[in-house]
Structures are given as C-alpha cells and as structure tokens.
C-alpha cells in the first residue's frame, strides 16, 4: 500500500535516518521501535504529509504521494500525540466535527462509537471535565468510526487503562482481518490476537 524509498531526514543537525526504505503491505501491523528521540514521531508525521523536512520518495498505491494527496487523506487515518479533541466541546460535538473533516469516518454512528469506547452517558459532558484517559478515548473513537484502510497511530495507548488497551488491540486485529493495515508506535507490550507484528527498528537504520 505505502512504499517509502531512500528516506533521509535530519533534525537539529542530527541525522535520524538515511537511505531508509520500507513498505507497508495490506493486512499487516507494523510497529516502529526506537528509543525516545530516535525519530518515531517524525517518521509518522512524514508518512502523514505533516512534515516536509525530508528527502526521498513516498508512494501510495504506486503513485507519488504529492499527486494523490486527497485520495490518500481519505484512505488514511492519523491519530497523533495530541488527540485533536477540543476541551470546550462535548465528545459528541468533537466527533461530529471530525466526521465533517474526514468523510471516511462513516462506519457507524457517533452514539455506537462512544458506547464502544466506554463513554456512554458522557456524550454531553464538555471534554475538559473528562479524565485524561477519557479524553484519549474520545480521540480513539475515530478508530471505530473509520473505514479508511491505513491507520497511522502515534502512541495510541497513552493514558488508557488495561481494558481499554485490550479493546483497541482487538479492534486493530479486526481491522487487519478486513484487509487494512496499521502502522504505530507504542512503548506498550503490543499483542494483537491472531496477528504477527512486523517491527521496524529505528535503532538499526543507516545514519550516514
């Protein structure tokens, strides 16, 4: 699905990766591994088109990413460090806006998604009065709504409880079975039921 060729990225005069090539196929989970500061978030931002600080080529379904950007954004779901959840809006208002921004969030209704993330009964509460984990859940409710084939998740499990993590792992397994792919970073011990996780270790890539 997504192919990266000869990626080079430098940050603050430190080379993060050079000659870095890999691809992500349909129906697979790729976990980016590396220490703090090894460039995991930078890599994911590059893949999302949220960073121009690189050289190299990225292809989506065989086409140059710059040429098929709109198609790519429709087929890709990005959940970043920051959840993109507005504190002064309620969970439902937040999700309704996200659905306006991204038409591929159409798999189920907002009420179903909120029920799935365990926020049933909290839909009318402004998000700033929810706990950190609950706010995270509002952002992650997008995963239940999304019919996009590629998910790019940056530390999706931060602040989630054990049960929440289990549910998200099961959700990722479902997504893979439907032929989607996931690329994620996490410091959590990831176990996707019935799937093998392909690691990409940023500690082992070229730096010259």
């Amino acid at each position, binding site marked *: 699905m997504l192919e990266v060729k000869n990626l080079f990225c430098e940050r603050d005069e430190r080379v993060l990766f050079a000659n870095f090539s890999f691809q992500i196929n349909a129906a697979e989970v790729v976990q980016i591994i590396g220490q703090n500061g090894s460039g995991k978030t930078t890599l994911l931002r590059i893949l*999302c*088109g*949220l*960073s*121009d*600080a690189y050289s190299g080529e990225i292809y989506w379904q065989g086409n140059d990413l710059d040429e098929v950007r*709109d*198609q790519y*954004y*429709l087929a*890709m779901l*990005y959940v*970043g*460090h*920051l*959840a*993109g*959840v*507005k*504190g*002064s*809006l309620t969970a439902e*208002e937040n999700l309704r*806006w*996200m659905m*306006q*921004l*991204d*038409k591929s969030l159409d798999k189920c209704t907002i009420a179903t998604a909120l029920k799935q993330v365990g926020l049933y009964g909290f839909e009318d509460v*402004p998000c700033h009065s929810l706990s950190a984990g609950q706010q995270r859940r509002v952002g992650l409710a997008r995963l239940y709504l999304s019919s996009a084939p590629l998910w790019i998740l940056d530390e999706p499990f931060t602040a989630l409880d054990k049960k929440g993590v289990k549910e998200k792992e099961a959700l990722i397994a479902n997504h893979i079975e439907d032929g989607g792919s996931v690329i994620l970073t996490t410091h959590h011990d990831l176990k996707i039921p019935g799937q093998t996780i392909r690691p990409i270790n940023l500690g082992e890539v070229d730096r010259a």
Partner: protein
Amino acid sequence: MRFFLAALKRDLLLVFRHRNDIINPLAFFLMVAVLFPLGVSPDPAFLSEVAAGVIWVAALLACLLSVDGIFRGDYEDGSLEQMLVSPEPLLILVLAKVISHWLVSGFCLAIISPLVAMMFFLPSEGYLALILSLLLGTPTLSLMGAIGAGLTVGLRRGGVLISLLVLPLYIPVLIFGAGTVQAGAMGLPIQGYLALLGAILVFSIMLAPFAIAAALKVSVRS
C-alpha cells in the same frame, strides 16, 4: 458549502463557550475610548477633531490583539494537524475561521462604535461613515492578521512578531478608514473612501486565504 457552514458553526460554538474571547477586544476598545479623554483633554472641540483617528486606531489594535489566537488553540490541541490531513479544502476552512473571527471582533466593534463616537462628540453626520468604514475595513484586518497568525502559530512567543508582520499591512486600511470618518463628519461625500476600502477588501478576500493556508502548512510541516 456544507463544510463551510459546519466549520463556521464549530468556531462560533467555541467562541460562545469561551466568552472572554469576545469580551476582550470589545473591552479594550471601550477602555481606550474611556481613558483617552481622561489622559489628554475632555474638551469637546478637541475630542471631535481627533475622534476619527482615535476610534480607528483603537479598533485596529483591538483586532490585532485578538487575531493572535485565531489558530493557536487548534495548533495546541492537535486539531490543526487533523485539519491538514483532511481531504477537505483548507481554503474553505481558513475562510470560515477568519469570518468567525471577524464576527466576534470587527463586526461587534462596528456595532458598538456609535456609543464610542458619542463619547468623542463626533458630529452626527459621521456616524454612518464610521459604521460603514468599520464594516468594510475590519474584515481586511482579520484576513491580513490571519496571515501573520498562521506564520507565527508554531512559535512559542509569536505576539511581538505578529504585530511587526501585520502592522504595515494595516496602515492603508487605517488611513482610508479614518479618512472616511473625517470626510463624513465634515459632511463631504464618502463614496470614494468606501470604494477604496471595498477594493482593498475584495483584493484581500481573493488572495489572503491562499497566503493563510500556505502559512499554516509552513508552520506545521517545518
């Protein structure tokens, strides 16, 4: 169009939940109007002479004060990233954000401006000119201010920089805006001034959204 309305609705809802954002520029505008005569001279003849300039400068600074926050909240909580990875056109979104900013700053200023004009003993012939010039001039201030806000949103302290970037662009609007009010107060025709303000507005509506969208991309992606 549906997306534009949804974006506008979201921004207005956010402002409604943070009412300080509306009150701040208005309070600043009123405070300048109240304090200026106390500090300089309460003489009606003097005040009516400087009214046009002072009211317009106060309105301009009130707009500048609030424009800094137009993208900051969205940048800080990650909403802006989501907007950039959306297939929806950024231009429409940017236009909706600027219009919602104008509705709570420039538009409200224009509405309360007659009150301030009264405090400055502006001749009553100038009232219409004041309201019309603010209605035509302040949207330009919001549009141009948003370019600066977009460029500085990634910086921790963008406040000073944004004034430096944007003030030179504000000067023509200030000159023609204050000129309109002065001409109106003296009973001269104001159509020429209004036409110029309108022309600046049309020009900035056409070009500023592109500049704002590009500025946001630069700020987030670098």
